[in-house]
């Protein structure tokens, strides 16, 4: 399972040498230039143990939710992560937020490994990496007013805003996300889904974070409201120089908002590249199948579009197939695929070639195929 090969997309990590809490805090709050890596994820692994027994628990296996994922996030960019349910994309979000403890691997934020931090240093990380949740109905405490919800970050991190300023700051935030600042005393259940998601975004912005992890931020919203929220997020990104990790299953939205896209399958990254590399020049069969299955709201463009219909379901992450995890549903699978784990790197066939197909793809038989555009 060791994935030691260095791949070219991933930059070198310059680990921070900070030791004391104060030094670590200084590193975390240091500025980063646009285009420089801000978050570097290396061989991230999360296994959830499966146990048996009530009093004396015995481990009988593990759900390999995330199994060796590496990627970079650059300052000011949006990295989209797509995949089907159970591919581990939401677990990646929780790991980046240090809401779950990684089984192994590192997450470097400005060179500082945040997976092993605790106490004040961890709190400083929280200030810099925030999250927007999927479900606007469950992510806001129904017993708190909007003002209390958006103001809570200031209660937890009093150094960010002095007490007298908070109400004003909350109203500014409401205004920034396009809500009436007078709504400050209302309760979440008085708002529609789109408005609630704006409240959630305002809460995420309160501490002036540099990175926002968005876990399916618009999938619970109506189509007409989705566009509003997406536009808002893009506006905020420009305004505050935010970096987004945008996790979603809707491939069209991910293409729209992302600069680069990673495709996950069963706990591993199958393919990663710029939006054009992934959507216009996919080389991994899973990406191709995924893209071809997207129903396109245009009957004219649909004619003549190639469709790959996969058979079967995603295997259980508790017992993933050997070798390439996609091989059980892949039409190209050969013996090699069962024996050897394909590494995420530029496939040999494209190595050194000047084509957009030359990007990281974890397939032994990578091959370019356009499934998005009509023939």
């Amino acid at each position, binding site marked *: 399972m060791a994935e030691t090969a260095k791949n070219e997309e991933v930059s070198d990590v310059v680990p921070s040498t900070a030791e004391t809490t104060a030094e670590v805090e200084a590193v975390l709050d240091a500025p980063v230039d646009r285009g420089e890596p801000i978050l570097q994820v290396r061989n991230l692994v999360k296994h959830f143990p499966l146990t048996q027994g009530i009093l004396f628990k015995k481990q009988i296996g593990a759900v390999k939710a995330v199994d060796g994922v590496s990627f970079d996030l650059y300052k000011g960019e949006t990295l989209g992560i797509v995949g*089907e*349910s159970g591919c581990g994309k939401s677990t990646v979000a929780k790991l980046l937020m240090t809401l779950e403890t990684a089984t192994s691997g590192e997450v470097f934020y400005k060179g500082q490994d945040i997976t092993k931090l605790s106490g004040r240093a961890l709190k400083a990380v929280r200030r810099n990496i925030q999250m927007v949740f999927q479900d606007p109905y469950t992510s806001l405490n129904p017993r708190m007013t909007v003002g209390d919800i958006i103001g809570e970050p200031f209660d937890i991190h009093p150094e960010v805003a002095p007490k007298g300023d908070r109400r004003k700051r909350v109203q500014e935030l409401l205004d920034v996300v396009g809500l009436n600042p007078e709504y400050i005393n209302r309760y979440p259940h008085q708002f*529609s*889904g*789109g*408005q609630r998601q704006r409240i959630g975004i305002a809460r995420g912005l309160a501490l002036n974070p540099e990175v926002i992890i968005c876990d399916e931020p618009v999938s619970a919203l*109506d*189509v*007409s*409201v*989705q*566009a*509003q929220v*997406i*536009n808002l997020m*893009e506006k905020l990104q420009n305004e505050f120089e935010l970096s987004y990790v945008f996790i979603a*299953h809707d*491939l*069209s*939205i991910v*293409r*729209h*908002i992302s600069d680069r896209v990673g495709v996950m399958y069963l706990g591993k990254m199958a393919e990663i590249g710029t*939006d*054009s590399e992934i*959507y216009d020049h996919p080389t991994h069969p899973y990406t191709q*199948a*995924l*893209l071809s*299955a*997207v*129903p*396109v*709201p*245009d*009957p*004219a*463009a*649909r*004619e*003549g*579009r*190639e*469709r*790959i*219909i*996969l*058979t*079967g*379901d*995603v295997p259980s992450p508790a017992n993933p197939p050997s070798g390439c995890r996609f091989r059980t*549903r*892949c*039409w190209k699978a050969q013996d090699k695929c069962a024996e050897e784990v394909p590494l995420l790197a530029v496939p040999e066939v494209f190595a050194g070639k000047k084509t957009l197909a030359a990007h990281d793809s974890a397939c032994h038989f990578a091959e370019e195929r356009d499934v*998005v*555009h009509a023939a």
Partner: protein
Amino acid sequence: MTTMEKTANVPEPRAADGDGTPLLQVRDLHVEFHTRDGVAKAVNGVNYSVNAGETLAVLGESGSGKSVTAQAIMGILDMPPGRIPQGEILFRGQDMLKMSAEERRKLRGSKIAMIFQDALSSLNPVLSVGYQLGEMYRVHQGLSKKEAKAKAVELMDRVRIPAAKERVDDYPHQFSGGMRQRIMIAMALALEPDLIIADEPTTALDVTVQAQVMDLLAELQREYNMGLILITHDLGVVADVADKIAVMYAGRIVETAPVDELYQRPAHPYTRGLLDSIPRLDQKGQELYAIKGLPPNLLNIPSGCAFNPRCPKAQDICRTETPALAPVTERDGAPLAGRGSACHFWKETIHG
């Protein structure tokens, strides 16, 4: 293991029954809910019809009344708080709202069946799949346990559940999401109904599984020559399978059109806005067009056209007069079959 195919062409819409009566016709249906905050007007005069072998897609966002209409057709609305103050639901020309509870119960399942979004909660977790599938035959046709089970296996084969014979005694939680949705489809198909109502049948499924299930549904519909009402919010899913589309907003149908035409030339600003607000898969766009404002509050639907507060074309007339669903024609007045728009300015919308 993997099949590849070019997308099939849209099936030809089939003609109505011999006598010209549509399979199902909804006429001026109103549904309201009495809540402590007031009366929520969920459906406000919906008209549509479906013929045998035809797929009608009802497209709308949450609160548009698309699901409530379907539940009214199925007769599974909770009343109270629901109420149907006026309207008719004609099944083969007979008004179902005037039927006795017993008559309607007999229609349900044998003539009209429904597929829900959430297959897991729609299946009983403590009964085996085979038992639940066989139940249709035992209850409606009085078959023996053994015969019913054989029928259940046959059905599971038909919806292409692998190893049906071995899996017939399994329980719902032992199946994956896609397989469970197939079981729901099998259950709906059991008595070979004339009409199937599918309420967001693939919304809870992954993209690659969605395609499998939609294809299966379309194929079975062709095979049995059933009418299909597909309720969805997904413009993409609709484009793949529907013959005609009814777009709903705030409990009304704002536009009807054959599938291809709707996407090429929408005749209602809401439809146009929806189409413009979805990002494209095949190219990277600029800023998305977004319909401004909020979905309507059903307790307090705007006067005139319900869409007027969000509409870029709204004039004074839109705030005072409710537009009727008017036939849409070509620029020169030539009729466009099956097209209608409830907009005072449909001409400007479709012909620019």
